[in-house]
């Protein structure tokens, strides 16, 4: 592999990784706060992607409007799912919650198949053109994707660490009961987390459409699972961790594809996950948890 090809693949990987990272942030936040592996998260991206497609390809709306619509739809859907499916189960065993999440994910997937049709929907790329960086051809899409996702991460870190809402989120994830005693509204904080996570998914779906320009009902499941892998790799509940995990997965995939093993891409991702879980279950940046009896 020549050096310029390697750089090109790295940039590809960073681009895919940014999408994973954005989705992983949503996973990570929700997991951090109610310990739920929100399987439906990937499918919210799918709905967002369809939104983008219809807004731009069918109704010819300007991209800025499409992005706003997409983010609004994803956020509403995320909060709606939380209110309808997860809130009634807040005191139920974790297993029930997880199964509900799987059910919601399947419902969205199959519902989308009915509403949008089973086939793929393709649209023209939103951002075109590229420039030469040395001898490497870099598309503007890649640059936009990477910059947007890094910006979102910085913003999110600021929100979680500096604002009152962020403080409430951290308190709830630390100890739900104690947070409630301190006057934090549990419902509002959890909904807020879902809203932010789903909004990030919305941004992720726009970036996904920029990169791949096609939406299909099942695109969310593998994307969601890989994003979760990214979140686990980085250490669940940690914002920079999700970012690092996302980039790791993206670059890994790009490199595996570059050496001609693109069919083994998924297996490689899961293999890395398994190895990390076995040797460092808390991920790269995760906190160690003590089991209480």
């Amino acid at each position, binding site marked *: 592999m020549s050096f310029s090809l390697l750089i090109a693949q790295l940039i590809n990987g960073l681009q895919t990784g940014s999408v994973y990272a954005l989705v992983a942030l949503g996973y990570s936040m929700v997991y951090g706060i109610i310990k739920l592996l929100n399987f439906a998260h990937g499918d919210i991206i799918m709905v967002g992607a369809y939104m983008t497609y219809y807004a731009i390809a069918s109704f010819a709306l300007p991209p800025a409007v499409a992005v706003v619509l997409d983010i609004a739809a994803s956020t509403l859907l995320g909060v709606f799912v939380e209110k309808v499916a997860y809130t009634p189960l807040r005191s139920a065993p974790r297993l029930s919650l997880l199964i509900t999440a799987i059910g919601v994910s*399947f419902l969205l997937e199959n519902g989308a198949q009915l509403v949008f049709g089973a086939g793929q929907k393709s649209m023209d790329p939103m951002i075109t053109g590229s420039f030469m960086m040395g001898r490497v051809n870099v598309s503007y899409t890649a640059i936009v994707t990477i910059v947007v996702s890094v910006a979102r991460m910085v913003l999110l870190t600021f929100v979680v660490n500096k604002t009152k809402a962020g403080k409430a989120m951290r308190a709830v994830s630390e100890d739900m009961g104690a947070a409630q005693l301190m006057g934090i509204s549990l419902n509002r904080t959890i909904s807020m987390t879902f809203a932010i996570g789903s909004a990030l998914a919305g941004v992720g779906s726009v970036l996904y459409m920029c990169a791949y320009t096609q939406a299909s009902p099942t695109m969310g499941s593998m994307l969601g699972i890989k994003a979760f892998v990214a979140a686990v790799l980085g250490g669940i509940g940690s914002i920079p961790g999700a970012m690092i995990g996302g980039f790791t997965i993206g670059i890994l995939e790009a490199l595996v594809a570059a050496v001609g093993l693109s069919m083994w891409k998924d297996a490689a991702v899961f293999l890395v996950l398994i190895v990390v879980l076995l040797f460092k279950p808390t991920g790269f940046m995760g906190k160690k948890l003590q089991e209480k009896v």
Partner: protein
Amino acid sequence: MDKLSKGFRLKTPVRYIINTAVTVLIWALLTAFISGSGIKGEYYRGILITVGINIILATSLNVVCGYLGQLPLGHAGFMAVGAYAGAIFMKSTPAATLLRAGNHAAVIPYVIIAVIISALVAGVFGLLIGIPALRLKGDYLAIITLGFGEIIRVVITNIDSVLGFKFTYGASGLARIPKFTSLNVIFVFTAICLFLIHVFMKSRHGRAVLSIRDNEIAAESVGINTTFYKTTAFVFSAMLAGVAGCLYAGYIGSLYPSNFKFMKSIEILVMVVLGGMGSMLGSVISAVVLTILPEMLRSFSDYRMVVYSLALVLMMIFRPKGLMGTYDFSLGSSIESAVAWMRGLFRRKGGGSPAGPADDGKEAGR
């Protein structure tokens, strides 16, 4: 509970005789039904075979999901391993020629060997996956088994290019597998699998598995080797899934890696959850219903998966225990309670000591 309902107890051999008799009766009824329904018999036979396969899959997942209390999402992977192992073995035997000649009896030894091979291979995979995976819990276990399941599928799809010869035939599919899964074969193996699960769960090993579900730390502190029992239950479940896979291969005749996607694992999980995690009867009922219902609602088939997933969500919100909860039906216990109830009835007429309704059989059994 008063003494009367405790008074009547069936002996274990009697229970087994009754259960065997009922099993044979069900078999006779099904056979009569198939041969009696003429032209449609072939269609019904196919559905019944699928029902049998799904029963094995659901009850085997129930061992880990309901009895052990873990949530693995890679069951389709074990099914795939079993299916390919059994299919590759059957293709290497003269079974196809024998079946074409109509000599079904001569195929039986090959079928038995194929099922055993499938169970063993799936069991080995279960052991290899279970030992590392079961160190994790809850969501992490779910995601790691999902990962292993996907790896199995990717490997089956791409192994040929590594080996350099045709082994699984990759994405183009393993075709022309001898179709050895007849109704009798499926019935016998379903009965054997259910029996094995029953016996396993009634043994002290099964009790140990249940205690891990109820409280792992407490189980460990009374000296139960939790790692050993978790792995045992996991391997056992994987082996049965392998058996189901083998029978599936023998029914469908050709295998594609895409048959064993993550979706398949979820379908099996839906059966277990709807039936009630920890109830074998529940798994059996929901496997039967969820196989037959879509067939009856053919025109409705676009909505099948939507209804499935909606049912799953609603079930979790309104009845998280599933249809049957952890209740398990036991014919022996039911007879006992019926007898006790009748005795109570006569006593009351004669002199009147009240007899409450007897305990509903809480034991695992068919």
